[in-house]
């Protein structure tokens, strides 16, 4: 899982006391008011008996007692006012505890509101109290990673953002990590070589003016070149916003840009596309990035823009939410949200967090009574083809730095996001992405050795 971009939004607006909404707490669920399942089932998708009663007796690790497991969830709620990770945690824990918990131990969610700048403080608190971190993420997560490794806290993130954290030690990302490989290689290769070969000679790139997004922009540029594209235009926009997008639109038009990658807030993208549409310029494609996945972007962009411009994005192997009815696992998440958190929206990060929770629960269940950090981490690392019960494309978790193979592309229509015609070859996904290893110098993920520890210290 390297939804670096998923949180770029937050980083972009950093420190403005306001701002940056991602899919939020609006009161609609993607699938409409689904009816709650009549009886709670212990199975999730193709995972059997995720949670079940048991009779644990010991207290083998910090945060684990005979009756409960304390798990930390990080989120920038205080800054973004967006509670999707806490919602996912609430839904999973309520469901799991109704079934008797993980082998009889109740899941206790310890919420850590990182409020953008307080990652270190919350990480230290998590170090003091929790057994592990599950299904969360903070925009500036790189600030807390040394503290996390110093206290040997395993992390099953819902999202990772900064290069220091993506693929760091003691971290199992449910979608795979592959921090030294370009995450969207399949997507861009499809865009530039198959779908819109004419656009390869003129790709544009707009990044939010934040150090975090700039690094992502550099990696994207390298990835585009590797996929055979030429970057003809590259620009920044100020994080504090922009008073008129028309000069940018005009610039894109005069440089004859055919494909545009936008690493920033989808609220800004909607306005840029309005300006492009107003001056009558249509690109072959605009990569809206997966921040834009959800009804908010569709509503902000409006019919006129969506029927003119071709917005695409890569869900990197997460089953599309709008088709939940066609996939039992996704349908089950939607139903569980309707039952346990009816006012919360099922968003892309919520699905990813749910996959992380399932990974933790399954791994922890294999440890039985003797639930230790080492056991749960090692168990998660044995998953060769983790799909979260069917929520996502299979990911090989045995290698902490393996390139991602699968991608699935969505396009925006006036009726909402829909799968694009990207020729899937493995169910809803396409799993023949080329491997692009970064050659540029970027910050490296933090290792246990960096803080003077080793795997032998993990108990």
């Amino acid at each position: 899982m390297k939804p670096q971009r998923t949180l770029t939004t937050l980083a972009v607006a950093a420190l403005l006391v306001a701002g940056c909404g991602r899919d939020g707490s609006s009161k609609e669920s993607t699938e409409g008011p689904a009816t709650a399942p009549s009886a709670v089932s212990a199975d999730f998708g193709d995972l059997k008996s995720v949670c079940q009663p048991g009779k644990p007796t010991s207290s083998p690790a910090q945060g684990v007692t005979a009756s409960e497991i304390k798990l930390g969830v990080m989120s920038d709620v205080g800054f973004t006012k967006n509670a999707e990770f806490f919602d996912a945690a609430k839904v999973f824990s309520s469901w799991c505890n109704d079934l008797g918990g993980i082998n009889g131990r109740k899941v206790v969610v310890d919420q850590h509101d990182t409020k953008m700048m307080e990652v270190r403080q919350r990480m230290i608190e998590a170090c003091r109290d929790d057994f592990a971190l599950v299904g969360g993420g903070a925009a500036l997560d790189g600030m807390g990673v040394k503290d996390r490794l110093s206290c040997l806290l395993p992390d099953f993130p819902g999202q990772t953002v900064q290069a220091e954290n993506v693929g760091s030690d003691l971290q199992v990302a449910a979608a795979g990590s592959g921090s030294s490989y370009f995450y969207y290689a399949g997507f861009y290769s499809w865009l530039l070589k198959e779908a819109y070969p004419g656009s390869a000679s003129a790709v544009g790139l707009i990044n939010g003016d934040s150090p975090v997004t700039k690094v992502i922009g550099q990696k994207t540029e390298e990835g585009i070149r590797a996929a055979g594209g030429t970057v003809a235009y590259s620009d920044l926009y100020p994080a504090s916003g922009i008073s008129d997008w028309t000069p940018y639109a005009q610039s894109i038009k005069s440089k004859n840009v055919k494909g545009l990658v936008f690493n920033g807030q989808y609220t800004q993208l909607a306005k840029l596309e309005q300006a492009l549409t107003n001056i009558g310029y249509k690109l072959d494609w605009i990569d809206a990035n997966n921040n834009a996945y959800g009804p908010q972007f569709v509503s902000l962009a409006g019919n006129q823009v969506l029927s003119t411009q071709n917005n695409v994005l890569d869900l990197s192997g997460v089953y599309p939410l709008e088709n939940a009815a066609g996939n039992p696992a996704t349908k089950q998440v939607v139903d569980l949200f309707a039952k346990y958190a009816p006012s919360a929206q099922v968003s892309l990060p919520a699905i990813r967090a749910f996959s992380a929770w399932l990974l933790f629960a399954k791994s922890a269940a294999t440890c039985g009574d003797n639930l230790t950090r080492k056991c749960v981490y090692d168990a998660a690392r044995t998953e060769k083809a983790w799909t979260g019960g069917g929520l996502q494309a299979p990911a090989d978790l045995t290698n902490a730095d393996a390139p991602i193979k699968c991608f699935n592309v969505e396009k925006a229509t006036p009726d909402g996001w829909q799968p694009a015609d990207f020729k899937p070859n493995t169910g809803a996904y396409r799993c023949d992405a080329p491997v692009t290893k970064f050659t540029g110098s970027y910050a490296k993920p933090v290792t246990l050795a960096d803080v003077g520890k080793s795997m032998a210290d993990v108990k």
Partner: protein
Amino acid sequence: MEQFLTFGIVGLSTAAIYAIIGSGLVLTFTTTGVFNFAHGAAGMLAAFSYWQLTVGWDVPVPIALALVLLVLAPAFGLLLELIIRPVQGLGDAERLVITVALLSGLIAVARWIWDPNKPRPLSTFFADKKPIDIGPATVTWHQAITMGVAIVVAIGLRILLYRTRAGAEMRATVDDRALAGLAGADPVRANRVAWVLGTQLAAIGGILIAPTVTLDASQLALLIVSAYAAAVFGRLRSLPLTFLGAVVVGCLESYLTGYLPQNQYLPGLRLAAPALLLLAALLVFPHQRLAGRARNLRQVPLPTLRGAAFLAAATVVFGVVLASVLGEADLITYGPIFSLGIVALSYVPLAGFAGQISLCQLSIAGIGAVVWAQLGDGGEVWVLFAAMGICAVVGALIALPALRLSGVYLALGTAAFAVILDRWIFTLPSFDLLGMKISFFNQGSVEMAGPDVFGWKLDDGQELMVFAAVCLALATFGVAVLRRSRYGRRLIALRDSEAAYATLGGNLLIARVAVFALSAAIAGLGGALYGMQQRSITPEQFNLVAGLPIFLIAVIGGLGAVGNGVFAGTAYIGPLHAVVGVAKWTENPVALLPGLAGAGMGHEPDGIAVRLRRQWDPLLRHRVALPVVLAVVALCWIARLNDVINGWTFLGVSLVVAVALRSWATAKATAPKEPEVPVEWWGLRREWRAEDKEVLARGIAGS
């Protein structure tokens, strides 16, 4: 050529919005003398209200427009006038701060009312009409309307100011307030008209700009940096020049987008272009006459050395106690009490003594932090002095151009400098200059090591907090000594009257450069300490927006008071975190606090630090009460260290005992006083005293 024309037309459409917003700024500034930082925020509120009416409640557009522009905006303008009137007679810093407070308060209110995660599409005017093609460029109807409105506003303002009685009154108020009053004009009425009109212009700008940008509280409120540049072009006085400035800024932004070569060093330059232009416009200002005796001056309190030493000792004790009772995570949260306190203290010599307003102190602190991060890996203490030295040089460099500026112009110039650092310099990749490798934030975050003081490696939260407290104590004592020194008196003379200072042989250049350098060095020290406490730093922690609350609280604390450092640090960091820590639901109301505190500032012009000092003085001087309080605190502390009580009990008991004994000591100190005898009865109804002669002489001389 075709492209040139196209970008020109695009630039003009942007310029129209800047012109409308800029003219509102100029109108209120010239009439009331208050530069309204909350001008954009007023526009933001109008845009949100307009959205609420048209989209939220389906009110037809014309009615909604009329409601917002003719009812809500004027009402809000009158409210602004009420809030701002008490500070109008105060100094530049106070007048500036109240609008900064309004800005932060209004953003908090808007975020509270309108959930920032909900999408709020707002369509442009006549969105369904086909855009007009002018050669290769395309102008939408919305842009055409915006330009039309700008022209109407220009003509309307001209007629208002030169053809109506209200306009004449406003211009008279600008020229000479007292004289206008004598001639029967009502300055308060002129102010009201200005605020109402200014708010209406902000509202028009807000409603016109909102559909083309994101409807987001802070973005809308802060977008108008470019409009500031336009207003400064008009020297904050001339409306035609403001319109010209708007055209220059709009076209510059547009052409830079189109023509600036693309490499990794330059994009930031374009983002910073309005700020650079603002700075340039300030610098080509004709050199103004030296300011004469400033009005509304307040005395700068003179601390005694004993008092300053006591304060310094108390700061260290506070740091030690705090460090010993807080947990590791809380140490990071509350650590900045001392480090940011030092940054706040840097305002005291600069703004308090010398009367120079700077909005870039936190940015300079950022430079201090960067120097430490890049050079101080090993924690050598000399790097800390190097950081202060480099900051001092930067401060001196700012002072050179700032020599031409004062008051609100200086504030704008330093704000522009801060924006240039935020948007361009701090985001640069490392580069070589004259054989030296210069890097800033490595385009991300940089790690900070703790210092190594005489072989003593300070790297955990407790040690760093005590170290920061010691530094703050030393800096506080140093500033107190400065206040008592000859140089301190010179700075105050400089504040009181530049003309007199120069006439008496003072060198303005040296005095200003020195005080800028000194305060920059103090800020740099604070920044380096702040970075050490956070362990890794990003540019966002040091940007203009992050710096405004510190300036706000420093001014509320009282710029002249040397105790301001510890006060501002505590007030900025303490309550906000503590209250939310106790009760999570208070998050939204607490966000309003700085705004409310600023709005209430008119009632305590000397600053809260001074008032606290006055209130607690009886306790500090009492021979029984003070030891009792200290003993109780010490007992509680021991109890806390042994985990007998928790942190909140410790805080609560200490506060209750201190406040109770303070009241008691105050009652004792003010108790029996002999009845006042009128002057003319001295020597008759009471005995003639030795000092009476001098008292009378001074009384007569003073009147």
